[in-house]
């Protein structure tokens, strides 16, 4: 992430040290290769939001808030509501983060998380249509990164999914070409629980949930999002390096396996 200071000499030395450890199946913080840091999910923290979730993954901390309103649909999908995910790396999240317009890392983060939610068809957008072509329900999920310590992709995705799962929205009925709130509240039509699993390749070793130290020395990164049935619904390779086809297939298998474990935790937290 942009919110990381690059120090080439330290990275080179640390990479050698880390590679030696990884060869023995160990990591700097004592985790195994396929082990996530402690994941904590809290929901319903922000009363003024339709839903919210704070995720802490090791020392990485993010908070997602959901705001629901009505708006005009996109011309090419007149019968679907809108679901938009954004993410901002706040200047308070790291000594190296800066205020200002989002840089390419922040844009990639928001777009990769958004794709995971969208492509998995987590929310049934057709249920959000009030008057086709005129007015639909719009759901914004905005994520603020509070503390950067690696793997923002997964922390952000977990927060979005947990928040959406607990989100309630006003019930709207058509009123001519407009929408009228009935005063009732109903849950957001959540159909699936996508789980993002980010893996880093360091040398020949694939690890999950890279910490900030591991991200600083990793060769390549891959984020794969899987759904409840073990399908892959979104993915992104990152960093100027490579994967062998066999490593990609191993990552696909690993993401499905870890995804199952984490889905239980998300579903448990969102009750």
């Amino acid at each position, binding site marked *: 992430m942009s919110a990381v200071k690059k120090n*080439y000499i330290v990275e080179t030395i640390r990479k050698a040290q880390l590679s030696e450890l990884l060869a023995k199946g160990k990591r700097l913080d004592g985790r195994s290769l396929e082990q996530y840091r402690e994941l904590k999910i809290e929901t319903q923290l922000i009363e003024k939001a339709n839903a919210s979730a704070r995720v802490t993954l090791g020392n990485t901390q993010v908070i997602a808030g959901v705001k629901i309103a009505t708006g005009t649909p996109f011309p090419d*999908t*007149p*019968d679907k509501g809108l679901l938009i995910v954004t993410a901002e790396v706040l200047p308070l999240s790291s000594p190296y983060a800066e205020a200002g317009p989002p840089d*390419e*890392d922040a*844009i*990639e983060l*928001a*777009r990769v998380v958004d*794709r995971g939610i969208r*492509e*998995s*068809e987590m929310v049934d957008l057709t249920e959000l249509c009030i008057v*086709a072509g005129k007015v639909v329900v719009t759901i914004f999920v905005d994520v603020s990164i509070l503390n950067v310590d690696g793997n923002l992709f997964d922390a952000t995705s977990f927060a979005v999914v947990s928040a959406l799962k607990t989100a309630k929205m006003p019930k709207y009925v058509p009123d001519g070409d407009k929408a009228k709130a009935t005063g009732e509240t109903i849950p957001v039509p959540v159909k699936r629980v996508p789980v993002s699993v980010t893996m880093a390749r360091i040398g020949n070793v694939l690890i999950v949930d890279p910490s900030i130290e591991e991200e600083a020395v990793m060769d390549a990164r*891959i984020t*794969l999002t899987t*759904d409840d*049935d*073990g*399908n*892959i*619904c*979104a*993915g*992104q*390779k*990152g*960093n*100027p*390096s*490579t*994967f*062998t*086809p066999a490593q*990609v*297939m191993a990552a*696909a298998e690993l993401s*499905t396996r870890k995804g199952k474990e984490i889905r239980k935790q998300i579903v448990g937290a969102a009750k």
Partner: protein
Amino acid sequence: MEAKRKLIDDKGKRLDGRTWDQLRPVKIEVGVLKNADGSAFIEWGKNKIMAAVYGPKEVHPKHEVMPDRAVVRCRYHMAPFSVDERKNPAPSRREIEISKVIREALEPALVVEDYPRTAIEIFVEVLQSDGGSRVAGITAAALALADAGINMRDLVCGVSSGIVDGQVVLDLNDSEDKEGSGDMPVAIMPNLGLVTLLQIDGIYTPDHFKKAFELAIEGGKRIYEMQRQVLLQKYFGSSPAESTAEEQE
């Protein structure tokens, strides 16, 4: 909303008449811009994309200099007239993300250690877009880098696969990209057998995922053969394939 139209007919033909594993027609030219250190123009289906490379050159701003290697920069941009509705010429979030993944797909092929304290700048300008523009852009940009004489470990070539009407297909065109249910752009270094770009959209069962991924790699190798022929033509006037054919006659 209108009913979804079929994108593959009963005989397995796609809208543009291709079978599931066929590429669209590809035409590539190298060394087409005078000022650039390297350039290439690719026509791939209705995609028309210009790629240019400047560098290795001095780094501006100076604090971005790297003491042991070149800085690689990339800009992917779509012309306002390249799509159906006029596109705002300012870089969109999509273009910023694609610029990043293209850079990360090409950089592994460059021997950046050979050019310390310099910048290598890659420009991909989409003049007309027809689905798969990022992989077409990567294919052209890799040739522009070779044309600029930059030391490379391998060429980089790319192609998308995806899911259309529940079937795995190669090289999605615009309608298949928009109306299909999955798109997977893949770029590879064909001789080293390494994947340098992988993005996944849509729902893939494990079997579909494997099939689509392997199909894209296989398609990429066909694109590589075209890249190779273009470079041989440009720098040696003929391709060995042709000369062998002549010798055999």
